[in-house]
């Protein structure tokens, strides 16, 4: 994967482990992807597959047990994994990359006014007066579709959808170039979810944002992203152009996931599932991590870890079956 001039974020072999008394949880291994300006990448997978760990590693917001043990994360040729905490805070977070955390219901501090929370973020990152910051907060509210007169409300006075909007407003406070949204639709009703997706799409076009959408919901990702990376047990199994992957998925896990998703359109079929459950990442199986659940598993799958290899234009797969063919 060569980097072109427009490449904004280039993640190469990023590996993050969590240290527990029992050993290392291999939460994310050899994660590689690339974001051009204006891209929207979907990170998809089941719970516990390492989606959020990847986001937190990029932001360098991992909990104390978490450590990036290898790989690079190049933002415009600066390696984020090498920057000091001070540089990260002053230069990168909020100004260049910001994140909307999972769980809109609980991500705001309940005892402060929403305006104060946004103003605090602005003042911490930019040299401006409190008054200016407040005005900017009001503008941000307007941009995400909440009446600016409500900036002095407390979070409990907001509905779920409004809280999610307020969080997006807060993330956009210092004009970032990349916005990471962790499960933006979960815990919201379908109609509200559709409204939030529309907002994200509009903001992306208007502000030229580059998005990373983390979700377990393939249909949500299909609505907004142009690239997708499917993760399983801490590794990317398939990555590339979204239409390619939805229409011509090659990895057995991706295929299984697609089959397990009911659609409101198309024929009514009996849904199929992937038998078994994901492995424990403290001691993942030898070879391909999907081997125990894969119906095509061969001898090579039990011994050797497949690497992510290009199989077509904008299409990468990590599977022995595909590589042998």
């Amino acid at each position: 994967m060569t980097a072109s001039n427009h490449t904004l974020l280039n993640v190469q072999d990023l590996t993050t482990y969590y240290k527990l008394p029992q050993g290392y949880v291999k939460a994310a291994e050899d994660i590689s992807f690339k974001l051009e300006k204006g891209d929207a990448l979907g990170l998809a997978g089941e719970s516990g597959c390492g989606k959020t760990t990847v986001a937190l590693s990029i932001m360098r917001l991992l909990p104390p047990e978490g450590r990036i043990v290898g790989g690079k994360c190049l933002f415009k040729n600066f390696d984020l994994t090498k920057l000091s905490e001070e540089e990260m805070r002053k230069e990168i977070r909020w100004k260049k990359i910001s994140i909307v955390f999972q769980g809109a219901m609980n991500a705001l501090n309940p005892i402060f006014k929403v305006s104060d929370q946004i103003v605090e973020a602005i003042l911490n990152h930019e040299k401006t007066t409190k008054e200016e910051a407040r005005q900017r907060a009001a503008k941000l509210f307007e941009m995400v579709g909440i009446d600016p007169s409500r900036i002095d409300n407390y979070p409990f006075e907001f509905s779920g959808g409004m809280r999610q909007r307020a969080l997006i407003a807060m993330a956009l406070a210092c004009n970032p170039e990349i916005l990471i949204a962790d499960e933006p639709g979960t815990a919201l009703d379908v109609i509200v979810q559709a409204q939030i997706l529309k907002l994200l799409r509009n903001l992306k076009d208007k502000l030229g944002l580059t998005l990373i959408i983390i979700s377990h919901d393939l249909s949500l990702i299909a609505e907004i992203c142009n690239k997708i990376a499917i993760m399983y047990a801490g590794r990317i199994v398939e990555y590339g152009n979204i239409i390619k992957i939805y229409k011509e998925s090659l990895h057995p896990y991706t295929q299984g996931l697609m089959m397990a998703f009911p659609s409101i359109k198309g024929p009514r079929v009996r849904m199929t599932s992937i038998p078994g459950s994901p492995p424990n990442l403290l001691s993942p199986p030898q070879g391909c991590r999907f081997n125990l659940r894969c119906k095509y598993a061969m001898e090579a799958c039990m011994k050797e870890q497949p690497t992510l290899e290009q199989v077509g234009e904008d299409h990468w797969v990590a599977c022995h079956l595909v590589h042998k063919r």
Partner: protein
Amino acid sequence: MSEEQLVKVENLRKLFPIKTGFFSTLLGKKYYVHAVDGISFDIKKGEIFALAGESGSGKTTTGRLLVKLIEPTSGKILFDNTDITNIRPKQFKVFRKRMQIIFQDPYESLNPRMIISDIVAEPLVVQGGKSAEEIEESVCKALEDVQLVPPEEFLFRFPHELSGGQRQRVAVARALITRPEFIVADEPVSMLDVSIRAEILNLMFDLKEKYGLTILYITHDLALARHICDRIAIMYLGKIMEMGPVEKVVSEPLHPYTKALLNAVPVPDPSILRSEVVIKGEIPSPINPPSGCRFHTRCPEYIGEICKTKDPPLVSTEKDRTVACHLYV
């Protein structure tokens, strides 16, 4: 499928009182959450009936009312042609055996201090009249039914030793052990990962065929409802907006709310572009629901005063299909 009704609900209402302050009490003001506000429907023997809607629309309350976990404010519930609305607890015990519920969250619905065999056996113990050996045999059979095999391996485990999918299987086994005819499934897969959802649903479907169950399936996921249910009722703020065979409701929705809801469901196909979201705002508070049609505050097809003042009745548009909207009166 026989056309015989198993459950019939007539004008069912449930209002939850809200605690107010001292002065409001003095002024005699009382506030209620209108959770379920006058709904009528019937469930035929052997079908899967879906109750769909956004959160706060009263789906779960309806499910709990049907199995008598809570008492209705007014209205009637008929089970197998017997009125069970105001039945005495002692007489109800016979019916309890015939109706069971599977809860949404398998991480909370199983007592963490009980072993699996005790959890699954509890309904039988409560019902009484069976020896310890008989109960043990039934428990093993129930675990086999939900494919927790071999049962001996699971009998003495605690819920925390099982995965989410396995826990929900235990919940299904517990519901099925009394050989019920009617099951309320309250979002049984919404807490599970996508790859194992289908497994639990197919299991429920197979058991339904095997034991001739009738299921009320409560869900917010229309795509999922479409794949497993026979008939569907769409709820909004405690009222039924539209009801009919699921394929018809999904392919040609009549009510503006159903249309909006279907429009908002994301499609797992990036080449299909979704039409614009027309509906604004969020579901209003059920404490003071809008007058007239409850949906008039957000309705894109609002036709005038009548929507504000008059509550539209559920009218039949064709066989087996009803809608509550002034557009179709």
